């Protein structure tokens, strides 16, 4: 397969990649801890879209069995992502709880200000 022929078929994935990288950039470049967590969320959600996109079958329908035969989309990625969403929200909840504690302990949620308060050993 030469590359030009791929372009329309892969367009969807490329958008997902861009989304993913936006989230990733937020995580590693921001100093505000809240934003880092939001970034993580975006990053993870984009991965979900990647998974779901690969399960899509052209002309398929949702994988709920009906009597007359039709094409179904791939259910396995859906299952995996259901699990991953739950894991994601669990991580968010913990991260949020930690941030609340950090705010109480330091009075700020900016990473660089916290570092300024704790001279490294």
């Amino acid at each position, binding site marked *: 397969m030469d590359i030009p022929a791929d372009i329309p078929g892969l367009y969807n994935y490329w958008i997902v990649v861009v989304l993913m990288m936006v989230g990733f950039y937020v995580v590693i470049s921001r100093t505000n801890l809240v934003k880092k967590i939001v970034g993580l969320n975006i990053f993870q959600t984009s991965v979900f879209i990647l998974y779901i996109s690969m399960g899509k079958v052209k002309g398929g329908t*949702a994988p*709920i069995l009906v009597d007359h035969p039709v094409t179904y989309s791939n259910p396995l990625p859906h299952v995996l992502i*259901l699990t991953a969403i*739950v894991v994601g929200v669990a991580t968010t*909840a913990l991260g*949020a*709880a930690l941030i*609340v504690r950090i705010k*109480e302990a330091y009075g700020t949620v900016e990473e660089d200000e916290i570092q300024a308060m704790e001279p490294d050993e």
Partner: protein
Amino acid sequence: MRKHLVLRVVSKLLMPFILLFALYVQFHGDFGPGGGFQAGVIFGSTFILYALVYGVETARRVARDWVLRLFMITGVLIYIGVGYVALFLGGPFLDYNTLSAHDPVHGQHLGILLVELGVGITVAATMVTIFFAFASRGRG
């Protein structure tokens, strides 16, 4: 708390329907989209709505901490328990086929029903617990 009368009345009206919808999602997951997890979230959000409208402390009197924790534990135990039951009935862990002596498909139905119930209970209780933890932080 005399403010927001409309909000309180409307949410009071809505709540039974949300709960009903949660139950529908819980037990209709076999046929349409939905299942224990989604139902748990919806069920949990009813309590959160209640807490938002009537105040967290009022809500905490309705759903006591220890009750929530108990439900959180119960749900997980139901799921893992089903696994163990299958084990004691001679199958591999979580093999629902063993749950029914005569018809494996029946066993599968039963297994899925129980397991989804466990998921629903734990998810709902955990959501409310987490929300309460956040909401009552900083208020004593």
